């Protein structure tokens, strides 16, 4: 008996993880400014994904609402979980912490600086994603910095 897959077509999440690893490695070994390109990719993806995610809701009342939306809904859609911590100094700086970040969760490495540098490469794309989402939702001049 043939079992048919009913409903939406799905792809394993790990496909994206592997693709991300491969793209990071490729760009870092063949392009002069890999961080910028990864960040730009993330930016475009973030913008477009956000158009889709805000389909059913109206305007955001303020910055905090945008950031909260980012932490909860967008992060859940993209990474399957919400952001673990959100801190702010109320002067426009927000710190978002994800304690079990998918992109770096399964990298095996020591705790020394060199490995951390390497791990940091995988943060360009998500940083761009956040920046793109913010830009689409009304904060186009945000700066996003990612730290391991």
């Amino acid at each position, binding site marked *: 008996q043939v079992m048919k897959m009913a409903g939406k077509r799905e792809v394993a999440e790990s496909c994206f993880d592997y693709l991300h690893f491969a793209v990071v490695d490729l760009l870092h070994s063949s392009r002069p400014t890999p961080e910028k390109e990864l960040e730009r990719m993330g930016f475009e993806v973030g913008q*477009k994904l956000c*158009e*889709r995610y805000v*389909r059913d809701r*109206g*305007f955001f009342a303020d910055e905090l609402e945008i950031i909260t939306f980012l932490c909860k809904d967008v992060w859940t859609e993209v990474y399957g979980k919400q952001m673990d911590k959100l801190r702010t100094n109320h002067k426009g700086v927000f710190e978002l912490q994800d304690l079990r970040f998918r992109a770096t969760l399964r990298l095996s490495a020591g705790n020394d600086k060199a490995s951390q540098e390497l791990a940091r490469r995988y943060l360009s794309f998500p940083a761009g994603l956040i920046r793109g989402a913010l830009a689409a939702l*009304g904060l186009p001049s945000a700066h996003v910095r990612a730290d391991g």
Partner: protein
Amino acid sequence: SFYIVGKKDNPLYEYTPSQKKEDLNLLQQNQFFVHAALDMVDEEIWKTNSMYLKTVDKFNDKVISAYVTASHIRFMLLHEGKSEESVKSFFLEVHELYIKIMTNPLCDLDAPIVSPAFDTKVRAAARKYFQ
């Protein structure tokens, strides 16, 4: 006439059902009305939480309805008093079409929409809700 206006008040899409030549003058006038109505839209969005803003401005016998997405893209419709329900349904359907076309990675969010498929679908939606 139906217009999609982007974040920087740049026009992304325009559709006018009429084809007559004398209406070209009217077309420019319509664009002017819609542009002026953008200010009214900016006021209204802070007053309500929904995306559909109903009628934001009136001009002679024409009325302008608006719909704003959370990403600040505005859909404006210039018409002569169509029913609220059909206008709202039209906006919702065009919003769906907009999202679908914007998820194309080769598509720029700030550039005018030139896809003929999008155009055809918007026309079909207009016929469906307004005829």
